[in-house]
């Protein structure tokens, strides 16, 4: 039974783990990520404690800094919320970047052409509607092909990013260019800008409302249930009589529409104009936020705020301690890696050899999986 080929350890899926232990593992891995970051600062000859303190104070201590941080968090949270329903059904929408840009483009069209003539509420509502519609359509094109021909959506949505960004570049240097040769689209008139609440454009209120909506949408509504079923098994959904293609297109349209809304908030809330990098990588970062939050909208608030703190704090770090601000991307990456890795220890347990039984001892430990010669006989037991 337990011959010498038994591996050093094997893995088994874990049943439900107590909540407290789950959070302890997550906290420990977050701490580990911070320690790796600290090591990086130490290598650069900077005091790690001071560096982290600078990041926190630089992003939260002053009201103006706090406003900046919220400004960074708004699009990140909004896009994570947008992506949640897509990922709920295992549809890999990595085109949020493009959908944000598409929304921003549609909003800009109205701001430039009707921003001065229409009344304030009308122009803002029309811009938002146009942004949602165009973002949604931009997302629905790959979804249509996915539903109809099973075209790979990961790469399709990715390509859609570059197409719309190219279109914005063309508009920037062509039809919508302000001063000839400037490659810049003129600033929106104040009439087409979002009002401010507590010094930040009112997008943050919209996004908080959206968070609550998304929570109920995913957990309490019929459409959210359909999404969950498709995510678990497309065949089950079909068997239950759901029109999978229809649901996919509908859900992705919703996702794209919210991304478009984010684009609208970024242009007429924060930037006041449109340029090619309006999405600024948010579409990609939001994917990891949504995934780490396990599609829980409230967890997304915490994670996107944390990443916003890192991003804003790194800017302060650059000016105060001469550390390039791209360090925030490194820290973000390390945190993401360690959070992804720690899920393994939550979902699986490692059973060491001889733990369940008293297997023979005294021979050389067999190296773990991955280090054995290819033609090694597969005779070990598969008890689980």
């Amino acid at each position, binding site marked *: 039974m337990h011959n010498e080929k038994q591996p050093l350890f094997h893995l088994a899926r874990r049943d439900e783990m107590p909540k407290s232990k789950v959070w302890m593992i997550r906290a420990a891995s977050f701490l580990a990520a911070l320690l790796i970051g600290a090591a990086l600062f130490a290598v650069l000859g900077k005091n790690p404690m001071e560096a982290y303190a600078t990041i926190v104070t630089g992003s939260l201590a002053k009201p103006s800094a706090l406003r900046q941080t919220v400004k960074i968090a708004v699009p990140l949270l909004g896009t994570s919320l947008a992506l949640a329903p897509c990922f709920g059904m295992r549809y890999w929408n990595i085109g949020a970047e493009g959908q944000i840009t598409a929304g921003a483009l549609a909003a800009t069209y109205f701001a430039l052409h009707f921003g001065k003539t229409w009344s304030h509420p009308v122009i803002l509502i029309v811009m938002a509607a146009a942004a949602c519609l165009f973002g949604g359509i931009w997302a629905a094109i790959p979804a249509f092909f996915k539903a109809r021909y099973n075209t790979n959506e990961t790469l399709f949505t990715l390509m859609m990013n570059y197409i719309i960004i*190219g279109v914005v570049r063309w508009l920037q240097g062509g039809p919508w260019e302000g001063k000839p040769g400037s490659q810049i689209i003129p600033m929106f008139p104040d009439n087409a800008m979002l009002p401010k609440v507590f010094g930040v454009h009112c997008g943050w209120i919209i996004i908080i409302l959206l968070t609550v909506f998304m929570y109920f949408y995913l957990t309490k509504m019929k459409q959210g249930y359909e999404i969950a079923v498709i995510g678990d098994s497309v065949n089950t959904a079909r068997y239950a009589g759901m029109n999978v293609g229809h649901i996919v297109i509908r859900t992705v349209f919703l996702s794209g529409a919210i991304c478009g809304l984010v684009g609208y908030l970024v242009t007429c809330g924060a930037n006041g104009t449109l340029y090619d990098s309006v999405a600024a990588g948010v579409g990609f970062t939001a994917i990891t936020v949504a995934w780490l939050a396990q599609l829980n909208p409230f967890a997304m608030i915490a994670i996107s705020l944390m990443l916003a703190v890192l991003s804003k704090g790194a800017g302060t770090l650059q000016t105060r301690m001469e550390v390039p601000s791209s*360090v925030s991307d490194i820290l973000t990456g390390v945190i993401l890696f360690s959070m992804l890795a720690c899920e393994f220890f939550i979902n699986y347990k490692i059973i060491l050899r001889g733990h369940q039984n008293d297997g023979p001892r005294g021979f050389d430990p067999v190296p773990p999986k991955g280090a054995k010669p290819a033609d*090694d006989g597969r005779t070990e037991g598969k008890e689980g």
Partner: protein
Amino acid sequence: MNALILLIYNAVLNGAPLMYGTMGEVLTEKSGNLNLGVEGMMYMGGAIGLGAAFYYEKMAGAAASGPVAVVLAILFAFAAGAFGALIYSWITISLRANQNVTGLALSIFGTGVGQFIGEYMRVQEGGFVAISNGLKTFFQNSPFPASVRGIPVLGQLLFSYNIFVYIAIIIALLMARFLNKSRAGLHLRAVGESPATADAAGIDISKYKYLATVIGGGISAIGGMVYIMTIAGCVWNHDGLAGEGWLAVALVIFCLWKPVGAVFGAVLFGALMIMYVRVQIPMVPDQLYKILPYIVTVLVLIAVSLRRKRENEPPASLGLSYFREDR
């Protein structure tokens, strides 16, 4: 005629970084791993490859030899990409995390590392990281003697590229041979198509996945170095690499998971990237012309999904982690 030769010449030069990026990802995907971190690995390769050449020249001074600098740049770029791919492999293969998310995390991390190192070197060296013109020629000029390059038509068409183009072609041929003719290549393809079957046949799944992903990542990263050292002119600039890595991921589909196809696909994409300079089409502005490669990729994606031919399909287990215990 001359214009055509010039177009092909520039297409090959522009496509060279993509050749590496794509070939590396082909190898990775053959093992069933979809690594979306190519952009990140290419950034790392670009910054560290440039750093290797730069600091080597700084240490060796006037005695710096070109071939050594080229080899060092390749090795360091490879190591950088392999390191990124190793993190990815550990998290997806050993720890079974989702491949898409891990790949994106690698993209964020790698772009950060690349820009950080590039920026840090720039600040340390007083604002400018560039290698000397003497050394540059080894990166950018043809390795063939003038007599060969001087052959009419053929000289420019075949022998006038920088050394990286030829290395890429050699890697592509070797990789094609490895995948299609060798036993290990057969095993690797089996792992990508059906890991459960391969496991039952006694193939070490983890070993093949790890090796293919790490080596693939290294090859992809060389592409980043090639971009910086040839197209970007041996200087670190902040957004220089934007998009190349993502394009490489798309090209893998375009070339239908074939390494030699990757070379041709890269040349075609290189052509599409520079066509707007060479072949003006009236009424079509440059910026719209530049999105042509992406539109072509979309069309290819749709075409591949419409005509489901078996040899054109992606590896069957692409993007799925393999849990032996789940069976």
